[in-house]
């Protein structure tokens, strides 16, 4: 298993997440896809740490853990927003949330 394997895996995860974010209409699914994007980034942190010049410093896990914690908080905020949006518009379909456009 070399660094490249991990990077390819990470790129695939990134692609999946990005595709989800860009194409799906359900806000919750978009939120899931964002999580996948985070994980792709975390995988890169770990991989670069593991194959880097200084594996004893634990830089990578520290970054990854930090990102996971932040992502957890972000999900809490995000889901709260989703609930607020749902209460307001009675839908979670992004296609219907078009009040930003010119009528």
């Amino acid at each position, binding site marked *: 298993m070399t660094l490249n394997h991990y990077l390819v895996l990470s790129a695939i995860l990134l692609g999946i997440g*990005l595709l989800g*974010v*860009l*194409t*799906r*209409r359900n806000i919750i699914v*978009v939120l899931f896809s964002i999580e996948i994007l985070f994980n792709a980034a975390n995988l890169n942190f770990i991989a670069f740490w593991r194959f880097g010049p200084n594996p004893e410093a634990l830089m990578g896990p520290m970054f990854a853990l930090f990102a996971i914690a932040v992502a957890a908080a972000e999900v809490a905020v995000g889901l709260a927003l989703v609930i607020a949006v749902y209460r307001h518009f009675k839908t979670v379909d*992004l*296609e219907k*949330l*078009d*009040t*930003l*456009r*010119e009528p």
Partner: protein
Amino acid sequence: MSASTLALIPCLPLLAALCTAGMRNGRRAAAVAIGALAMSALLALWALSQAWTGDAQVFPLADWLSVGGTRITFSLRLDALSALMASMVTFVGLLIFIFSTGYMAHDPRCARFFCYLSLFAAGMLGLVLSNNLLLLFMSWEIVGLASYLLIGFWFHKPSAAAAGKKAFIVTRLGDLGLLLGLLVAFTQTGTLELYAGGAGLLEKDPGTLVWGVGAAKLVSLLLFVGAAGKSGQVPLHVWLPDAMEGPTPVSALIHAATMVAAGVFLVARTFPLFEAGGTLPLVAWTGGVTALIAALIALGQFDIKRILAYSTVSQLGLMMVGLGAATTGAIGMYHLFTHAYFKALLFLGAGSISHGCHHEQDIRKMGGIARAMPVTTAAYLCGALALVAFPYTSGYFSKDAVLVAVYGADRPLFYLCAFSSLLTALYVTRQCVYVFAGAHRGAHAPHESPAVMTVPLVILAVFALGMGGLFGGALQAKLGAIHAAHPFPVIATSWAVALGGMLLGWVIYSGRDLRAPDPLALVPLQRKLWFDELYAATAGRLWSGLTALAVLLQEMVAALAELVQELAQATGQFFSRSVDGRLIDQLAVDGLARRFHEGGRAAVRFQSGFLPGYLRWVVLGTLLGGLFVHWLLT
């Protein structure tokens, strides 16, 4: 007597004029005006007593303006001449003011009338007391204005409005002469003060103009033009008879007793200049011709006031003779003083008569007044006797003084004056017969006027009879007349013309049927010797010619202006349509706006409101940015 006390004499009536300007209540305005003038009269009497015993004095009031080395000050002169004039003006004025309260009682603009009268009194008093030609000129113009306003007081009558205009314009010609005289005097001597302790205009030689003509000659000639305009000397007399369109008290005060005498006063005041300039014979002859012409015209008139007006012109002419023939100004002024009283009396009497005859002024429609209005008649006859110069009335003494002076100076002029005196007696008798004798020929029965009108008449009658004998001699002595020997031919002539004229008139008119045509009212006399027609044909025609020319010029200028305007409009329209409309509006302003609007429309399509759509652009941008960085680094 201090300067400010003396200044109060003209200032009190001025204040009264200001106070009454806004009043509506005629009685209150009359009270204010009469009160102010009465105080002025008392002050004037005090001033007269001072001047009588003391020396002539000059009172500087205030600096008016000083430019460079030239100072123009307001100053007053108190001497026998000015004090006598001031007391005469205030006294006669007071009586006429009182008379006016009766005469104007029913006029709705009575308050305005007293305002104008007060303004006039202020101007006249300023005129006589002034020691400065400029101040005199200003007062001169004020009395001219007041005269205009009062002649046209009943401006709803077109004849009155026209008479006011005529008076204003004709006297303006004279005023122009006066103003020019002032300018010449000022450029020659650098001062307009009459007396200034040896440096005044009358106290030093004004020098010589070009070609050896003395400045005094030119200045005195120009001043005489002003005096002739104001005092109705031929040929500028035409305004004075027309001025009788004003209310009768105005005719009495302004156009008989005081203002028209201002010209005579001016000549007397600046007498040294006339003497130095050698213009006195001209003054005398102008006066003589005026006296004759006016006395002739008076014979042909039927309006009671118009006869008196021509008589005034004639007497003013005699005053000028008195000034021009004598070596001092005293004789002319003497006649001025006596004339002021008896002519004011005659005018007020005429006012009382026409008031009693329901505003009838045509003597052919009067008659029998003597029985109906005894007081007025008695007073009027006193005035008439004085005017005729019946022996030992006031007019006799003053006219006699004039005749004595002219007998010594200029024999032909003496005969001229004697003849006009004869005519005077004739027309006065004619008028009196027409008015007082026989039966009344008018439609309404005449009635006597109220006491407020008759009492001033009686007072004036006393003065008209007695003034000459009472203090005529003292007057002359004070004004500096030299009482020359009294030649017998003069006395004989005086008696003969007065008594002969009256006798002639009595013979012609007493037994006549007065409804028949008048034998002496010849057509040329009725038409006033065609003076008005002459002016209409000369000055009037010249004026209408000039007016037509001016109208033509004005039309040409108007056409030119229209052309320029058309041109400007065309240019403006071109620029407005092509440059402003097309270039600026459509292309620049609207065009830019439209471009921005279209740009906005295009840009708005990106704002779909679909959030992942925005994100797609972000991702695309990021990828492109990454590729760009990658390309930069490799």
